[in-house]
């Protein structure tokens, strides 16, 4: 199934009951509402990092584009000292922690049996690019718009969420060779 198993230390633990995991996630989201008055997110951190990278290479160009400039002028003194950037760092740590506890940290490539690793990488890149574009248009991704917007009963969030499922199911047949 996966390509590299030389560092399996023990069999991975089964996943948590999805309802319990969902309650946990929901409580984290609720905590964010109560403490910060805002919800979760992910794509914004990518944008901040991208803006900073462009600014480092071509500052005049970055400052001249209002999209990048917006990210460059956010944050507590520095565009990377921003809520989402720190939250995303936390996601990396939390994900790693959970994986470590469950014996699920392993260098591997997730893919179906009928596609090569190279093919998987190609689709991963394309999929990521589509995600990046879609997330910017929608002002958020599943974490921000669907989860947060959904819990807050935001009309745009719910519309977005339904379209995500529509898109995923709609394109599933075309991508079956990658996964099934």
């Amino acid at each position, binding site marked *: 199934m996966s390509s590299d198993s030389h560092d399996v230390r023990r069999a991975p633990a089964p996943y948590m009951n*999805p*309802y319990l995991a*969902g309650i*946990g996630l*929901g*409580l984290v*989201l*609720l905590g964010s*509402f*109560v403490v*910060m008055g*805002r919800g979760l997110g*992910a*794509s914004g951190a990518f944008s901040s990092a991208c803006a900073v990278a462009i600014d480092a290479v071509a500052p005049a160009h970055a400052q001249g*584009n209002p999209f990048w400039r917006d990210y460059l002028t956010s944050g*507590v003194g520095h565009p990377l000292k921003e809520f989402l950037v720190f*939250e995303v760092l*936390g*996601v*990396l740590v*939390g*994900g790693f*922690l959970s*994986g470590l506890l469950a014996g*699920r940290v392993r260098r591997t*490539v*997730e893919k*179906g049996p009928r596609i090569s690793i190279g093919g998987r990488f190609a689709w*991963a890149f394309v*999929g*990521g*690019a*589509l*995600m*990046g*574009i*879609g*997330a910017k*248009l*929608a*002002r*958020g991704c*599943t974490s921000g718009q669907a*989860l947060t917007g959904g*819990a807050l*009963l*935001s*009309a*745009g*969030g*719910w519309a*977005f969420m339904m*379209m*995500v499922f*529509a*898109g*995923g*199911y709609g*394109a*599933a047949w075309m991508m079956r060779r990658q996964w099934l």
Partner: protein
Amino acid sequence: MNAPFFKFGLFGDEASLIVAFVIGIGFGFFLERAGFGSAKKLTDQFYFRDMAVFRVMFTAIVTAMLGLFYLAAVGWVDLSLVYIQPTYLWPQIVGGLLLGIGFIVGGYCPGTSLVALATGKLDALVFVAGVFAGIFAIGEVWPSITGFTESSNLGRLTLPEVLHLPMGLVVFLVVLMAVGGFWGAGVLERRFAASAAKEEK
């Protein structure tokens, strides 16, 4: 009422970054617990083999929604100070569609790709690179497409406002929809002979 605490000045901007980090840890932890660090588990949703994505997402939404409603109802949280993104209807519809396609093509979404990256998935690394590429591309052309990207800005708009229903009723309907959906998800899974038994302890 003095919550949301940050908005009432309980702590400052610098401290809020620490809070963000802690919140992120919780977020990433539960995403991985649910198995969302695995593209195969995530995409199984779209083949009706494993409805965990639907279950986790809607349970989280219902939990946070109910929690916030009750805290606001007893006056402990000022709901008007909780930030709701403005609704840009058409960009969000198109963006959602692209995101859904990107999900099944790439195997992750931005949040889950980070969890997958943290647990060693190389394809997640490539996916993240793709996200940067996509953001770069759209950022560069953004000024010339603002006609679309800024269109249909309906401002802060909630379902109760759209449906002209009291919020409590909408909350109740969402709960019913979710519970009904969970039951239906189970039916679909069994029909598509899913390996659903794996995820329940």
